[in-house]
């Protein structure tokens, strides 16, 4: 049974987070931007679990649990906001939703 260096998990987490940031910045569809945020939250959860293993403590699992709960609440409210925006503007393009700019 070969062992995995703990830095591999942290590197994977950093890669996933950076891809989430890239999606958040590059995409123009508001739903895809939202999914990129979920990807970033998942990457952070992986870091919490990895350090929980490192310090042999259950606290990191609790933090990951709370992140999960907050992400679920955020998804419900955010998707409701997206529905309302789409009802009023019939577009999902974030460049077209700019009424607060003027």
């Amino acid at each position: 049974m070969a062992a995995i260096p703990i830095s591999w998990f942290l590197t994977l987490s950093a890669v996933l987070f950076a891809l989430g940031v890239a999606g958040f910045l590059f995409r123009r569809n508001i739903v895809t931007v939202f999914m990129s945020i979920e990807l970033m939250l998942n990457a952070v959860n992986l870091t919490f679990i990895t350090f929980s293993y490192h310090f042999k403590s259950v606290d990191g699992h609790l933090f990951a649990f709370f992140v999960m709960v907050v992400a679920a609440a955020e998804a419900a409210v955010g998707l409701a906001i997206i529905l309302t925006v789409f009802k009023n503007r019939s577009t999902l393009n974030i460049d077209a939703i700019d009424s607060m700019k003027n």
Partner: protein
Amino acid sequence: MNVILFLIFAIIAVVCAINVVVQTHPISSAISLVGVMGSLAILYLLLGAEFIAAAQVIVYAGAVMVLFIFVIMLLNAGAEVKQGRSVVVHLLGVPLLIAFLGLVAYFVQRLFPRDVEVTFGGFTGGTAQAIGRALFTTYMLPFEITSILVLIAIVGAIVLARKEMD
């Protein structure tokens, strides 16, 4: 065995994450995101977090992604329209991203030397029993506040989604 398992699911996670960012249709992105979450659940199991792995599959891959797919289908969202970007973005975007990732990987490898290692079964404190005990003793107040937050989110989502705005 551990390394092979890690590499397989890490590669699935990264490929699916790239697919989330690259795909133009939201449904394809959502399905790829399910792939990321499923492979992350396997990695959580590898780290000894059985409760969080189960919660990841049930809450994220189950509930949250079904909500996303419902909304995508409800809005009948088509493929994203390509927009003209400047030449600088086209030339520098991906190389800079790769350079940033390489830098992060280098620092992580430097800061965390190889003597700290992960084996399956090296940490068994992530059972539902241990999590439940910590949740109802040390983390009692955050847990209660989270329940209020979820209640507010439910009410807010219903109010937002059914309101007729002019």
